């Protein structure tokens, strides 16, 4: 079974049992790996109504067929579970070295189920798997956790760990690996915490095989030279995601003061040139030919980040124009184990609630001192952190302000204002895990590209196609930052697997994966009424820059959504019709 190791490691923390089982080959063919195959396993194994933080939930660390090969940008790992933030299916990805470690240890995936009686970590050292006591690690940040685990097990292992936020079941707790890579969204870290699992330590020293390695290396080298190392992708290396700050500001979609504006007066202080001014090194994930990671200097320390989502949602969106403060906020969130997007979003929401006099959290836009206290309070659930830890939706349920609670299905908005990129509104509304920029990223073609951002014309088709594209790409797994075609993916996958894979087959797999995620959510009680945006987007015009006066009018959004359902073969409630399910092999 070239391209796969053919084995899944299963760890049951309740019964303290560890065993390897055969990978389901039929599922691997239909769902590829990574995101898709992870969703399939969760769909089949985590039934409806299971509390995401109960022992009945499972968490899957899934590699893909390209993992561990020389195919560039293949170093990411999918983490799939049921989300404690949204109650939906949740797939996250994380870079670094862990994916390759798992595959080289001989597994396509590690599935964790149950709950340990006390805090543990799992050691996977090739064939040796142990559940070990982690009580000494309780309350430690991810940096110290990883450092200590590497001291004990060697620098050549990979560590996936949670901080106090995960232990304290904050619903937007993340998982950190290689010190500075995160699986951020939707609370994967809280699911680990609910299982009393502090960390997963992996060392793999084995090999990964291809059916026709010569042909694979020839086509991969050609793609590497002519398709990857081009201007289309190299921005990730030369600048990395901070370059998006200026793009968003100039197109009026940079979230500012909890999405009250789409431009930020101090954007120059947090844009790419400012980050490059303190940059000391570049870092890539394993097998990445780009290398988007920016190591920067802050005081005496050298640390990684911040990325665009942090600079925007936890920067301008909180009125913070002090780059070093954002770097510190980022570092605190990474160490405490918090998603910077949701942490930034809830901080901004609390700032607006305070400034509007709805409830006084003592937080104000641009107040650096208070802002820097927030991550620790949330992670420990102390003071205002006790309430902020619930996230934007929970806070709006308690205090109101729903019309400017910037979330979908309970997941906080990332850094793109849909009033200046209407397709992005549809993408947020229909992404399986809530407001998400990884399901589809139409801003590249709308606000940042050639398409009119203020029309719904053609947007349903655009979003649908991008959702299939990302679903397939994140299943193989390839990084978001390589803008390659289905044809190039197929050209590399065929010699790896030893059968001729077509671009059309990959696109269909993407559609199948997206629909299966939808079916999971429908089984959990979600339907079309949940595909909505907060009222601010529909009714409150932006006031500055190129988006001044713009909303995404609700009737336009409704028309776009209806067109999208029709294109998808879904009924008016957003449920896939039987003929669509039959076509995708999901009937």
């Amino acid at each position, binding site marked *: 079974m070239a391209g796969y190791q053919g084995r899944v490691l299963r760890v049951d923390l309740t019964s303290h049992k560890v065993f390897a089982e055969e990978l389901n080959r039929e599922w691997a063919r239909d769902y590829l790996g990574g995101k898709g195959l992870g969703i399939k396993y969760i769909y089949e194994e985590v039934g409806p109504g299971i509390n995401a933080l109960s022992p009945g939930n499972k968490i899957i660390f899934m590699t893909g067929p390209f993992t561990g*090969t020389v195919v*560039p940008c293949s170093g990411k790992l999918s983490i799939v579970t049921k989300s404690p933030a949204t109650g939906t299916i949740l797939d996250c990805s994380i870079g670094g070295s862990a994916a390759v470690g798992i595959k080289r240890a001989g597994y396509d995936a590690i599935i964790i189920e149950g709950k340990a009686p006390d805090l543990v970590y799992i050691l996977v050292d090739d064939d040796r798997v142990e559940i070990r006591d982690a009580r000494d690690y309780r309350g430690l940040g991810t940096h110290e956790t990883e450092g200590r685990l590497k001291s004990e097990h060697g*620098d050549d292992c990979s560590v996936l760990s949670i901080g106090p936020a995960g232990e304290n079941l904050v619903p937007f707790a993340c998982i950190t690996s290689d010190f*500075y890579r995160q699986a951020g969204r939707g609370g994967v870290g809280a699911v680990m915490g609910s299982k009393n699992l502090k960390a997963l330590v992996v060392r793999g020293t084995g*090999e990964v095989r291809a059916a026709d*390695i010569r042909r694979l290396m020839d086509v991969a080298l050609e793609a590497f030279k002519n398709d990857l190392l081009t201007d289309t992708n190299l921005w990730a290396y030369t600048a990395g995601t901070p370059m998006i700050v200026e793009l968003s500001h100039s197109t009026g979609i940079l979230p500012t003061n909890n999405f009250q504006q789409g431009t930020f007066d101090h954007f120059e202080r947090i844009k790419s040139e400012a980050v490059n001014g303190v940059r*000391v090194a570049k870092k890539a994930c394993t*097998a990445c030919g780009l290398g988007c990671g920016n190591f920067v200097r802050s005081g005496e320390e050298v640390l990684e980040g911040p990325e665009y989502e942090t600079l925007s949602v936890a920067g301008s969106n909180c009125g913070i124009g002090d780059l070093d403060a954002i770097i510190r906020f980022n570092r605190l969130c990474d160490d405490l184990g918090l998603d910077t997007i949701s942490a930034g979003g809830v901080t901004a929401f609390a700032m607006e609630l305070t400034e509007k006099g709805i409830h006084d959290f003592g937080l104000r836009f641009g107040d650096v001192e208070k802002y820097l206290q927030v991550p620790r309070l949330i992670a420990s659930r102390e003071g205002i952190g006790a309430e902020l830890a619930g996230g934007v939706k929970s806070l709006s349920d308690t205090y109101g302000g729903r019309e400017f609670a910037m979330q979908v299905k309970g997941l906080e908005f990332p850094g793109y204002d849909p009033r200046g990129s209407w397709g992005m509104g549809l993408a947020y509304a229909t992404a399986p895990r809530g407001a998400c920029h990884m399901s589809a990223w139409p801003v590249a073609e709308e606000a940042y590209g050639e398409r009119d951002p203020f029309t719904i014309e053609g947007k349903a088709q655009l979003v649908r196609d991008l959702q299939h594209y990302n679903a397939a790409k994140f299943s193989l797994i390839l990084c978001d930052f390589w803008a390659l075609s289905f044809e190039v993916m197929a050209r590399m996958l065929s010699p790896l697997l030893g059968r001729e894979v077509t671009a059309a087959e990959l696109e269909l797999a993407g559609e199948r994966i997206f629909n299966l995620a939808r079916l999971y959510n429908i089984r959990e009680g979600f339907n079309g009424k949940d595909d909505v945006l907060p009222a601010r987007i529909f009714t409150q015009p932006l006031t500055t820059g190129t988006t001044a006066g713009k909303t995404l009018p609700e009737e336009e959004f409704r028309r776009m959504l209806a067109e999208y359902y029709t294109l998808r073969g879904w009924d008016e409630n957003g449920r896939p019709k039987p003929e669509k399910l039959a076509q995708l092999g999901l009937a």
Partner: protein
Amino acid sequence: MILHYQPEKCTGCHLCELACSGYKEGVFNPALARLQVSSGYKGDNLVNEARLCEKCFKCADACSNRAIVYDRGPLSLVLDDCVQCGACIEVCPTAVLRPDGRGFPLLCDYCQGEPYCVKWCPHEALSLKEVE
């Protein structure tokens, strides 16, 4: 020409090792590569290091069975003459030389003058330079 490494240009992607093992061993396994790169966050900084064959030929000189041959050209191993004694590995000054799973030394032959590790290095951290 010898391999030259510039740590400040390295991003720690390990594509060089993956490519080397793929071409030379027919599998992807950095443990079987003819070079080793490490890139890690140590203390408060990112540290990149590499071990490369610098063509000093001490391994060949150390081989009492003359199993490692070179004639101003690439190193090669006469499998039938190698007794897996490890003398070549012990003497390697850069410690780049390692045994494969069976104990044979993983000699770098510079891929007939066009090393794959160099071809696969995205940011020119690896290059060939004239021997001084």
